[in-house]
């Protein structure tokens, strides 16, 4: 069984810098040409971007920073978003920490290796997010937002470290605590003379529409997905019709419908605000897409599971509740994050109907008399692009990580 000769090491695959340049950039005539042309284009673009960064007039962003972040939120009420932000930081930190703790415990029980996450891993995963924070804070004129944000990060990290060491009994209650914290964050904004969500705007509104949209669309999508797989033909056909019709229509048409026509469908004394109508449209639209995501998860549950539950004499609803859904929903998590990202990008569409969301603000500040006709769209839209990119990119990387960890697609 042992090697009888001295093992010969495989040839080194590491290239010296000279070899690397020859092999990876100039290995034949067309690659050399491509390298030179692309190199020139990149150099030119870089010079233009750097020059732009140094010559832009950032006053338009500095003056309107509040409008970008929270829209028309009254200036004397700004403590509310901060309180809400601290509560959400607590909730996210606690949830992430508790999830980490339970994963570690399960790995220990199974005797498996568990890779500990340190501050460096967090930085590597969330660097775009931190970069966006730095850019936003660089545009502030007073040190207060910077200090408050630093406090926010410290509180979040503290909650995370606290969540990690929670004992098992306390962890069970942490889910409830997280929900309470999120409700508290919402109440901090609207209750006791606060600002109702229909008057929110800016980045804040995009985040709200995304989270609320998915939260409302999820139950609808779940029902539609179960309906689509039902053995009752009427229920199946109703679900299929809804899903296919909605998926065949662009979101903007659904928003137009909600904006102009939904008032006609409701009793005449009930007139929801514009943001409510947008939220209804987003829920109706996303429900169909969530249904398809959940259907994918349901299809991933092996047939034998249902048959085994049947053989044990479980009634249908118990089979679904305790056997099918837990496995199906676990398999849908990455695809749900994907849906979350696409909604995050799609919330900008409310701008077309005049709702003052982040993109609309980036567009509208250019019509302020001081900045009118100065061609600052490049700057304001780049700022919006940065923030939207950070959100989608971070989430898509996390989705890929989850996909690997859950082993979806590796069956």
């Amino acid at each position, binding site marked *: 069984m042992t090697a009888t000769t001295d093992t010969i090491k495989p040839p080194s695959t590491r290239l010296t810098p000279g070899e690397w340049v020859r092999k990876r950039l100039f290995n034949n005539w067309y690659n050399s040409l491509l390298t030179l042309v692309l190199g020139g284009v990149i150099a030119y673009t870089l010079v233009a971007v750097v020059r732009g960064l140094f010559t832009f007039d950032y006053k338009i962003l500095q003056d309107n920073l509040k409008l970008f972040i929270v829209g028309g939120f009254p200036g004397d009420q700004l403590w509310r978003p901060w309180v809400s932000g601290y509560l959400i930081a607590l909730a996210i930190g606690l949830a992430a920490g508790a999830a980490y703790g339970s994963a570690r415990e399960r790995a220990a029980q199974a005797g498996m290796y568990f890779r500990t996450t340190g501050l460096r891993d967090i930085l590597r995963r969330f660097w775009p997010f931190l970069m966006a924070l730095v850019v936003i804070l660089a545009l502030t004129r007073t040190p207060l937002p910077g200090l408050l944000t630093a406090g926010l990060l410290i509180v979040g990290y503290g909650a995370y470290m606290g969540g990690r060491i929670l004992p098992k009994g306390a962890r069970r209650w942490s889910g409830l605590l997280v929900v309470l914290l999120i409700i508290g964050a919402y109440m901090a904004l609207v209750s006791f003379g606060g600002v109702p969500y229909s008057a929110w705007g800016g980045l804040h509104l995009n985040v709200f529409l995304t989270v609320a949209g998915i939260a409302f669309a999820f139950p609808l999508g779940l029902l539609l997905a179960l309906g689509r797989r039902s053995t009752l033909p009427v229920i199946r056909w*109703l679900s299929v019709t809804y899903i296919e019709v909605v998926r065949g229509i662009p979101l903007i*048409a659904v928003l137009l419908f909600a904006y102009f026509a939904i008032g006609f469908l409701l009793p005449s004394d009930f007139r929801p605000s514009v943001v409510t109508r947008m939220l209804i449209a987003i829920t109706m639209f996303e429900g169909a897409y969530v249904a398809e995501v959940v259907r994918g998860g349901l299809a991933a549950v092996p047939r034998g599971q249902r048959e085994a539950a049947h053989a044990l004499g479980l009634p249908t609803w118990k089979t679904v509740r305790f056997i099918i859904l837990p496995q199906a929903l676990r398999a849908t998590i990455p695809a749900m994050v994907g849906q979350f990202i696409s909604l995050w990008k799609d919330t900008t569409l409310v701008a077309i109907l005049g709702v003052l969301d982040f993109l609309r603000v980036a567009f509208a500040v250019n019509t302020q008399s001081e900045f009118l006709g100065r061609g600052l769209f490049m700057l304001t839209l780049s700022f919006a692009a940065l923030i939207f990119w950070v959100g989608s*990119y971070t989430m898509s990387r996390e989705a890929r990580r989850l996909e690997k960890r859950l082993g979806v697609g590796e069956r």
Partner: protein
Amino acid sequence: MLRVVVQLAALGVTALILYVLWFNLTNNMRAAGLPTDFGALDQPLGVDIPGSSIRPGAPVWRGILVGIKNTLALVVVGIPVLTVLGVVIGIGRLSTNWLVAKVCTLYVEIIRNLPPLLLIYFMFNAVFLQLPPLQESITAGGWLVINNRFVAVTAFTHREQYMMFWWVVAAAVVVGIIVAIVRTRRWHATGEPHHRVLWFLGIVIGVAIVAWLLLDRPIGLSRPVLEGRVVTGGFMGFSAYFAVLIALAMYTASHVAEITRGSILAVPKGQTEAANSLALTTFQRLRYVTLPQAMRIAVPPIISQYLNFTKNTSLATAVGYAELTRITFQAIGNGRPAPQLVFVLAMAYLAFSLFISLVVNILNRRLQYVT
């Protein structure tokens, strides 16, 4: 028994909900003094559509037809552009050239994660509107006219007898196809190389050149010329059209690139190794082994990206390009009843989507391996 009851109950509840909505709709519309039938489609549109013959007095349905035409103008030009761009970038990500692979990755990771509406605003407001004004148009030696209102490019024009020319070319295409089929049969029978693509192209191009000369040049080039505030000749499109076209093609191409890359990676490694051990050249390996198998995987998702592209053309509303959604929006703004118009809008997109799904289903069936 229980099953029947549950289904009847579901039907009943759905019917009840629809009835309540319908009841509210008709009541509210009557109270607002709006018509409840589709007669509104004959009422005047109330807006002027630039680049068409529609003036404010024209009926709504004619405006909607122009809107559909303008939507199709985006789709027909956009789909080839985004396909080529996406496939090139997708293959580029797998290039052995480090710089090419990194640039393509960077492109995909940036563009894919931006909202398409933001890209459209960016292209229109930060790029096209910053071009020089009409009086200082860029003309590029008479081949182009570019300014912040429109872009005009050199285009083909038809002279006398052009219909004759197209008939001749169509006949040549038919002959070419027949020759290609004959060549294929012969290849099957004798193993002689078929060269069917060369035969086909040779016949079509040869006939076209001869016909073009004999019919005294029925198709010519027309260069755009700026005279005062209008341009004559060439093909003219408003900045909004080009901005939307470029922005959406870039966005959809980033998704097509990911599909292309994934499909090529999904071809089993053994296929490449087998091709290499048969001493095929790189081109032969891609042409006969890797790409045909990757295509099978890539075609259905790419077509669903075409569908997304078509639905996203509705975002052109934001920059004032007169496509279907924009015109519906304007008609509603001019007091035409919203429920009917939104219904027509939804049905137009739905018809297109269902047509595409039909194509995908047929393709899926044809592309499956016969085992």
